[in-house]
């Protein structure tokens, strides 16, 4: 969808991602991140027109868990807020719509989860349809293995290329102080490791993470006041493929391609792309679907292979592209988020800085 108002990301903060953060609840986890994001622009919650969060009751283990987490925003003054049972990238989409509609000029967006209390691959099986798939309790890693296998069978990738994606991502994460997995074993050691769920080895899979992230959006002149170089959202779209895995061609992502086309990815050069690809083979599917070439730096943060907080890893992709535009490392970038199994839902945004 093409924007009617100029809206930009102007601030971004995230937790130091860890396998488990048992000493803090969700409020205590995300509150400092929200504070950091607001501090970056010198704002308080009174300056924010709309607040939107992304989280999951299945991970929190209670209904309407996001209401409790609103304590992290503060009880006063009263706010306009909403929530999505999705990654925070979709919360950002709702906030962007709210600003486009003229109902707000600024927004706070955050996403968070603690995956550590449960068995995440099992919990994620509850995203599947309850008749044909759910009763089989298929875990998320084995499901991803079906997709990797389909790609290998089709000759689109091999295990060495998958290991190279893992190696490149986690080596890149050495420069990311927030990442959970920084650095990789050498390629030959990766490929000598046993399968976790053939054809996937441990390095092909994302870490399990407790963490969160927050972003501030602002329109027009407010964005210019709040950031030395706002990352303007030039295009934004999200699309979905069938939940019927057996009826999909698992080697491609039509919904990511469509979202990329609607967001206008190909209408300019892409300096940097942060793709939310939890499994190594999915990076290749997405890079192909988005039409990204060798001139684009892929996942310089390390991506979801270096830290994968559920409900925040997509929002973090937006934040990582914003930070590179604000710092002048990139002029135009693409952020992608996914939700569901095997890249079922895909979100794409094109971010661009003003000419330097």
């Amino acid at each position, binding site marked *: 969808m093409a924007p009617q108002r100029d809206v930009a990301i102007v601030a971004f903060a995230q937790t130091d991602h860890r396998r488990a953060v048992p000493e803090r609840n969700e409020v205590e986890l995300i509150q400092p991140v929200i504070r950091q994001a607001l501090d970056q622009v010198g704002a308080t919650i009174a300056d924010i027109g709309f607040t939107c969060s992304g989280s999951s009751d*299945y991970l929190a*283990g209670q209904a309407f868990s996001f209401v409790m987490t609103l304590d992290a925003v503060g009880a006063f003054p009263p706010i306009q807020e909403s929530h999505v049972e999705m990654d925070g990238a979709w919360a950002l989409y709702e906030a962007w719509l709210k600003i486009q509609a003229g109902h707000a000029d600024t927004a706070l967006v955050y996403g968070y989860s603690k995956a550590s209390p449960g*068995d995440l*691959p*099992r919990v994620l099986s509850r995203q599947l349809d*309850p*008749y*044909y*798939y759910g*009763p*089989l*309790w*298929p*875990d998320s*890693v*084995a*499901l*991803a*293995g*079906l*997709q*990797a*296998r*389909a790609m290998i*069978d089709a000759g689109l990738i091999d295990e060495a290329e998958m290991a190279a994606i893992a190696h490149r991502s986690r080596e890149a994460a050495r420069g990311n102080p927030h990442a959970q997995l920084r650095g990789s074993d050498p390629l030959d050691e990766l490929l000598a490791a046993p*399968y976790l*769920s*053939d*054809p*996937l080895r441990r390095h092909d899979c994302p870490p399990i993470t407790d963490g969160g992230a927050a972003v501030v959006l602002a329109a027009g002149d407010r964005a210019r006041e709040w950031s030395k170089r706002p990352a303007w959202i030039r295009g934004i779209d999200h699309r979905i493929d*069938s939940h*019927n*895995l*057996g*009826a999909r061609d*698992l080697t491609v992502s039509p919904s990511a391609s469509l979202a990329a086309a609607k967001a206008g990815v190909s209408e300019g050069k892409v300096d940097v792309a942060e793709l939310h690809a939890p499994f190594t083979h999915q990076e290749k599917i997405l890079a192909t679907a988005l039409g990204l070439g060798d001139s684009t730096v892929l996942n310089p943060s390390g991506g979801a292979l270096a830290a994968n907080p559920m409900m925040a890893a997509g929002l973090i992709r937006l934040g990582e592209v914003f930070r590179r535009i604000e710092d002048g490392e990139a002029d135009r970038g693409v952020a992608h988020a996914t939700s569901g199994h095997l890249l079922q839902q895909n979100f794409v945004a094109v971010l661009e800085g003003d000419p330097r």
Partner: protein
Amino acid sequence: MLEAPLVIEYPFNRTTGPVIGAFLTGLREQRVLGIRGVDGRVVCPPVEYDPQTSEPLTEMVEVGAEGTVTSWSRVTTPRDGQPLGGAHTLALIRLDGADTSMLHVVDGEVVTGDRVRIRWADEREGLITDIAAFEPVEGGV
């Protein structure tokens, strides 16, 4: 420290409707039903609406109890609730007469292209788990 169990449950019933309901009822009778899509392809398990055009679908078609593995992933650490207690293969299986694949488990090691057949549960109640598992067809092509 006080501790209490946390059981998440959704204590309501769902009506499965004319398509999913027919499929599940068929399983109870050891028959597998698909549905014919607008383009003539047979979707199994059946869907209520055409995957391409979203038109409502109604023509149920019986498919075979044998099929071909179209993708697979080996599960060596089984989890609670999975149909087989031990190591197994999660697979997509295109049943004979169908044009799409069903997700289920195979009791054994198979690779893409292998032939498998349904092993029915002794007691069937109209659930996908009425198919206890698939098993490799010996000498299958």
